[in-house]
């Protein structure tokens, strides 16, 4: 599970050698540790002229977070982050100065630095020029992210439905993108809408008081999710099949939660999860559909059991559990304010040879997430998905060496992500302040070169 190449090119003689040979040098990504500064250096806030008010508002927020905020691009510092605010731009020509100002500091962007754009989504009825500039940000950000080096990432917040620039969900998304929590999220634009939400009293414990259920929690990404949610303050119900109980107990004991041995494909899985959460922990706030299996085969060789098992675990189980948790919409049998986060995959976006079943299931997850979003919203909740790219797990370590090396380098960060990177994205989407993010698929893929 170790990426020895990344280690080698970042230490000792092999580092010098790699530099001299001009070999790609993936950076050691900075990851969240309580007590570390939010960014690695000062934050530059720039905007087009019309967006100055929004930029000022955000700059004030950043100051409130204890950051060193500057408004002029100077070359006397290593920039920790650049915030580009384009919310009120009306024509393509409006953004030139701001964009070029960002360009002028990129050579002085620190290792693990951040570029974050804040713009508005093109909407029906927009003037063509307005729609052009708004959509232009998309292509700009995705291209810029590919130019960044040394573990720096570029991500964008896209305001929808007239969301205010300092709405709680916007700020919580901004903080996620600026922080080390988004280490492996790169080249992503996340739509954020207006929503009533409170910012956390303690940014290090955004899930304080929340009860979360994580399926497939015995090991790998699921165990990392449970640990991250617990670190963020949640009480975690760890679910896995009875046969995985040994690892499940280990996870539950590590996070101070409870272990619930349960097959998610059983007919009453959702009801049993809800009953456990309510009777043992007084309620349910978050459910993370992480349980998933692989049965890779070329479709020509696919056996019914291989297709059916993947669909049953990865897709049907999520649908059935969601139905049971959200109720039939008629009465009070469902859960209010429920945050649903499902594990999709880049295989469900770009496709993968030998994974027709898996790709179907993961694209299906994306489909049902979008459809579930309004149902969840009607009860004050959200439904989102996280799509991991190449993550360093037991599963991916079994891929043959050459295939694995290619797969893990085919992204802007030139390395695989860690399970905790997926977990951080999930913890963010599960947090109360992220209420304005709904029906979205957040990729945690280091800006994989395939798919969006």
């Amino acid at each position, binding site marked *: 599970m170790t990426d020895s190449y990344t280690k080698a090119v970042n230490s000792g003689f092999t580092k010098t050698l790699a530099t001299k040979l001009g070999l790609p040098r993936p950076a050691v990504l900075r990851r969240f540790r309580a007590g570390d500064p939010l960014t690695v250096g000062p934050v530059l806030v720039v905007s087009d002229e019309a967006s100055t008010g929004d930029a000022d508002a955000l700059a004030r927020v950043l100051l409130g977070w204890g950051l060193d905020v500057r408004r002029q691009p100077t070359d006397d510092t290593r920039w920790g982050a650049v915030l580009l605010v384009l919310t009120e731009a009306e024509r393509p020509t409006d953004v030139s100065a701001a964009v070029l100002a960002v360009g002028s500091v990129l050579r002085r962007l620190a290792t693990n630095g951040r570029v974050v754009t804040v713009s508005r989504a093109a909407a029906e009825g927009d003037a063509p020029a307005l729609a052009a500039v708004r959509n232009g940000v998309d292509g700009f950000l995705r291209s810029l992210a590919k130019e960044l080096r040394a573990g720096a990432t570029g991500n964008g917040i896209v305001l929808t439905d007239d969301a205010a620039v300092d709405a709680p969900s916007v700020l919580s998304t901004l903080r996620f993108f600026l922080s080390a929590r988004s280490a492996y999220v790169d080249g992503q634009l996340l739509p954020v809408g207006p929503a009533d939400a409170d910012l956390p009293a303690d940014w290090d414990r955004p899930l304080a008081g929340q009860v979360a259920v994580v399926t497939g929690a015995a090991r790998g990404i699921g165990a990392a999710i449970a640990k991250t949610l617990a670190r963020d303050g949640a009480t975690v119900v*760890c679910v896995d099949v*009875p046969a995985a*109980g*040994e690892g499940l*107990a280990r996870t539950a*004991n590590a996070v101070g939660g409870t272990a619930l*041995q349960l097959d998610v494909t059983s007919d009453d899985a959702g009801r049993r999860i809800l009953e456990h959460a309510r009777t043992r922990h007084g309620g349910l706030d978050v459910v993370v559909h992480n349980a998933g299996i692989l049965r890779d085969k070329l479709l020509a060789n696919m056996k019914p059991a291989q297709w059916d098992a993947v669909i049953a675990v990865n897709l049907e189980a999520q649908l059935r559990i969601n139905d049971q948790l959200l109720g039939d919409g008629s009465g009070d049998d469902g859960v209010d304010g429920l945050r649903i986060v499902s594990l999709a995959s880049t295989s469900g976006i770009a496709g993968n040879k030998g994974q027709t079943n898996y790709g179907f299931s993961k694209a299906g997850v994306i489909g049902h997430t979008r459809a579930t979003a309004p149902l969840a919203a009607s009860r004050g909740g959200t439904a989102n998905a996280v799509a991991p790219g190449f993550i360093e797990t037991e599963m991916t370590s079994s891929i043959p060496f050459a295939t694995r090396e290619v797969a893990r380098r085919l992204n802007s960060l030139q390395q695989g992500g860690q399970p905790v990177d997926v977990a951080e994205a999930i913890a963010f989407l599960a947090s109360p302040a992220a209420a304005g993010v709904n029906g979205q698929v957040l990729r945690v893929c280091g800006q994989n070169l395939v798919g969006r």
Partner: protein
Amino acid sequence: MATRKPSDGSPRGSSRTSSRAASPSAPAGVRDAVIVGGNRIPFSRAGKKYADASNQEMFTAALEGLVARFGLQGERIGEVVGGAVLKHSRDFNLIRESVLGSSLSPQTPAFDLQQACATGLEAAITVANKIRLGQIESGIAGGTDTISDAPVAVSEGLRRALLDASHAKTLQARLKAFAKVRPADLKPLSPATDEPRTGLSMGEHQAITTARWGISRSAQDEVALASHQHLAAAWDAGFFDDLVTPFRGLTRDDNLRADTSLEKLASLKPVFGRGLAEPAEPTMTAGNSTPLTDGASTVLLASADWAAERDLPVLARLVDAETAAVDFVHGHDGLLMAPVHAVPRLLARTGLDLGDFDFYEIHEAFASTVLTTLAAWEDADYCKAELGLDTPLGSIDRDRLNVNGSSLAAGHPFAATGGRILATAAKLVAAKAAETGKPARALISVCAAGGLGATAVVESV
């Protein structure tokens, strides 16, 4: 041949139709001890999956699963009580050491207790009594045993020599101590569970009892078959999903033979009672006797308040318990007949009849143990002479016996069996009560080496 009377002196009839007796209540000044739940590791035949697992590892694993199930991380439990029948001398604080290796608070006290195969149930009785008296609010009872990692001792001659040498002050004295060692002393003593006073193995003892009661081979094989079928069905129905946590890759009891049949059982050769005059064809086989097994189990007990404060479920309460012992040494009674004596005394004290139970959990040390126990309760002469009852204690509804299997199928890691049975019984009565809306009750009976036996009554809450 002394005739014993039940402790309160009142003989119990059993032939009367049993209208459901009132729930026995705790004596004044004593509160209920409730069973929250249990956890065990799958039981494994000796020398297989747990071949190199120690008692401490297995009991710690069982504890960790219990902690995870009920979210007890960092919790200071009132007392953890358990033991092992086959124990290394280094494991003098086996249960405490297991607690220290668990996620429980290190401030959780613990002690080892041992009553042969009744260890697990006796541990639960002890914990329940402390809770009933208000001495502790919560407790974990359990047990563990490994045949695979059993202690191997040195001969008495070598042991003496080693001790003498360690006490010797001079080299000469030391050499003198070792000079006494004879070649035969160098042979290690393998662990034995033979009865020290008779030299007979438990199986040979039971063979005598089986013969005395005339228990047939086919009746024993039917008990064994039912045990496997019931246990397999319970596993398939998910009954053990919240009672068992896998260990070392084993996810089910590996002694379980879901596909066994009367034909297969009938094909096995007798292993016990081959030296007896009667019957000509011995009846006890490897199929209707428990195999040597490794495993560990735990049960969480508490006061009702302690459980409620933590939003923990409550399955049942441990109503009362009785232990007994028989004189098997002089051949007066069978080695494993003690529960036969304990139960009428327990029923007398709780005001219950043998028919007042929804479930009977009778430990299947051997299929014939169950059958001789039931036969004795039905036998007027035995009940009068041995149990001091005017009428037979009675029969039980066999459909209520070991409904989810017992030791013949699950295996029998001596000290771990009590915890397995108690947690199973507690879950059964809870489910029955939830289904019927009426209180449900189980009778537990565990025989043990040394002519010992422990019994208990468990009732839904």
